[in-house]
């Protein structure tokens, strides 16, 4: 019983990170139908920067954290400007898929060149103590993800509901042309969405580095896992993504415990394929007008 509880909590804490990263896809996709295929590499960058600043640069934890998140957020602003804006030519364009993949490859290889293949864990400020809940033992540094991500999500919702930027983001998601007519530059709003998405990636990576070893090659698999979450939920459904992220985290914990750690990823992707057979637009997706071609 306590093992099951332990697996659930442990699954939830990694799942909330998946959700955080996958939300990065959703934030931009709802606004202009594009997403950054190199999101995973951005998360990696956040993690590697975090480790570099706090362990090699000896900066205070919070300063390193903020720097890592900000740098990745600003980098995504540049990516939007260079790799998205020119290539976003409507629903069927594939150029932005290719250009953001190219960006991901460049980020990863340059990071490898600068940083080397070493991996590192940033010591968590909450220490190495265990937390005991009904006999289940879980590390504080793992458990802390849940409240931190919870607070972040609340902040994100507040930003969306209360700030004028949030209003514009929601409006652009609904009808880009109408927003343009109102005299708001939709390019600017897309850029804001990308900065937000980059911040989420940076924060996700920095958080991750406090419990898991980060190295330059974690980017691609992480990005793919977050993509799986987005596909499971339907990429334009933020609430579904949070749910799918948590579910995926828990199922991974159980598969790793009872079936096999080696083939854990395969199960995840197999599941995604099966869901696509069953519901091509994701489990929780609800489209407004269905066009039947």
């Amino acid at each position, binding site marked *: 019983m306590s093992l099951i509880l332990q697996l659930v909590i442990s699954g939830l804490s990694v799942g909330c990170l998946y959700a955080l990263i996958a939300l990065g896809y959703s934030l931009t996709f709802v606004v202009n139908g594009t997403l950054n295929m190199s999101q995973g590499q951005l998360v990696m960058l956040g993690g590697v920067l975090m480790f570099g600043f706090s362990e090699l640069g000896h900066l205070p934890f919070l300063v390193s954290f903020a720097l890592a998140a900000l740098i990745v957020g600003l980098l995504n602003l540049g990516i939007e400007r260079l790799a998205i804006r020119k290539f976003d030519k409507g629903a069927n364009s594939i150029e932005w898929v*290719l250009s953001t993949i190219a960006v991901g490859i460049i980020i990863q290889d*340059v990071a490898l060149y600068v940083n080397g293949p070493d991996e590192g864990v940033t010591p968590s400020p909450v220490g190495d103590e265990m937390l005991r809940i009904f006999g289940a033992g879980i590390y504080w540094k793992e458990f802390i993800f849940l409240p931190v991500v919870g607070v972040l999500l609340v902040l994100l919702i507040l930003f969306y509901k209360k700030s004028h930027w949030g209003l514009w983001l929601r409006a652009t998601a609904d009808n880009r042309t109408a927003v343009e007519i109102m005299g708001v530059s939709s390019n600017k709003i897309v850029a804001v969405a990308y900065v937000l998405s980059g911040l989420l990636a940076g924060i996700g990576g920095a958080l991750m580095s406090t419990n898991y070893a980060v190295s330059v090659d974690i980017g691609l698999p992480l990005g*793919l896992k977050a993509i799986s979450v987005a*596909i499971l939920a339907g990429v334009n459904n933020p609430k579904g993504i949070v749910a799918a992220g948590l579910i995926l985290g828990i199922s991974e914990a159980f598969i790793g415990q009872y079936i096999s750690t080696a083939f854990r990823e395969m199960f995840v992707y197999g599941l995604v394929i099966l869901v696509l057979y069953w519901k091509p637009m994701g489990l929780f997706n609800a489209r407004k007008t269905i066009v039947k071609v």
Partner: protein
Amino acid sequence: MNQLIEKSFGYRTAAGWIAGLAAVGLLAAGPWMVDTYYLNLLFMIGIFVITCTGMNILIGYCGIVSIGHAGLMAVGAYMSSFLSTTYGLSFWTVALIGMLVSLIIGSLIAIPTIRAGGVYLSMITIAFGVVIHEVLIRWDGFSGGPLGISGIAKPQVAGYTFDLKSMYIFVLAIAVIALLIARNLRRSSWGRAMIATKENEIAAASLGIRKFTVQYAGFAISSVLAGLSGAIYAHTNSFISPDTYNFQTSVQLVLIVILGGSGRVLGPVIGAAIIVFLPEVLDMEKLRMALYGGIMFAVLFFLPKGIAGTVAGWVAPQLSRFAPKSQKASSSTASGEEIMFSAPAQAKDKELLVLEGINKYFGGLHALKDVSFSVAAGTIHSLVGPNGAGKTTLLNVISGLYSSEQGSFKLHGEKLVPRSLSAVAQLGIARTFQHSRLFKELSVLENIMTGMTKRERSGLGASLLRTPKQLRSERQMEARSHALLDLIGYEGDRHMPASQLPYGHQRMVEIARALATSPSLLLLDEPAAGMTATEIEQLENLLRKLVSHGVTVILIEHHMDFVQRVSDTVTVLDFGRVIGTGSPEQMLSDPRVIQAYLGGEEVAASAEH
């Protein structure tokens, strides 16, 4: 000089063949001209050309980016190597099995992701490539783990064992066949349907083309070619390991296609040659992937059509100056009308389409309210009403693009269930759209021919091999398309890309494209919008001709004098409700109609509440 070029222009097909044969002959002499090291590089180019020609069909024709084809190459390579090392089967058997398994696994991924659409497919294929790589590393019993499989036997035929030289010739032959297949495909209904779907899914569906069928065909071809090239590589190299087939390889394959020029038959050859020789020239160990990423980015930014596409873009206009002035096919063989309409005109008073109580909601908006009317066969039935009255929505419901919540349709007296746009199109209902939806990459003539895809489509195999039967059917379609263009009175260049057409011509060509499906019912959404007075007159003549041949037309139009002249019946819609149906004179002078258009006091008052 110019005269000489002009004269030789007629022989340009022959010249192309001769140049191609000379190039292949030169390459075939390769083994006796270069040493083993360079022969190996040439061999690798051949392997990449085979795989990337398949991917070129996928990326360039279908507009689908797969970043997992290294995984499919691995399937072909490992499957064939495992079978030949474990069971001692011959190369020819295992290569076939490798292709087949690659096709099956490719299909398993493609079927759900094609339905889900563009970016999902790219994502899933990346994941697929990563998973295959993982599996190869971990599944020792099959793949030999990280060490891979070694000692793979070379192919044999009648006691002769292939060496690198003969394998190179073999690869060259397969690569040439693959390129010819890609070329044939581009000149067939299937190829046109692929490009049409890529450019405008909805317009393609309105011609009865199913996105899934054509895109799956593209994926299947590319899977088979990837499996084949994997098997050939494994049995030439005698050794394979998982690291040959990782994410980087998949990216490299995509890079080859877009660098060479996606959608261009020779693109993969150029791309593969550059990507194989580049590391030799640069001699860099580190940052190689970053370099590939950089090249990919630079190509997208500065050469979006790739090298082959950009060069063709420079050369084609130069050449076309020398083209013979009149390319119009002789329309003397048969008049357009004779070819187009074999069916006898139907009796006018028979009901072709009956709508009963159609309702459509968009969330809280009740867009169509109990719409009922019937359309008599062989007449022009106009739908008029102010903007937002629900005219286009009704057209979308009839043509199957939207589903209605309530109500029923009858076509030719039988119950019609508009399941989807493509399904309705196959029942003989064609439509045009409010905004131009021509396939811009295709020529004017090809646009029309795309409309005939559903009626005359040859099998995929026949299209790839360009069989005599398929060629005949292509010629017929071409003749019919010329006849249709004659019918609408299109005088311009028929081989120029549709993107260069002036607006009025675009609208007319779109109508001709819809007619190419040989519909019994034609739905026209504001065809006269943006047309000049002369063009409207032409349209009017065309509509009369169509009706005289038994085609029924439902017309949405705002030019009231035009509506009054051509219509047999007019239905007026306002706020999603039918105000009335009757003759044009009767309806257009009806006070309720005038009020709906110009707004009376009553309407204005009720709108305020």
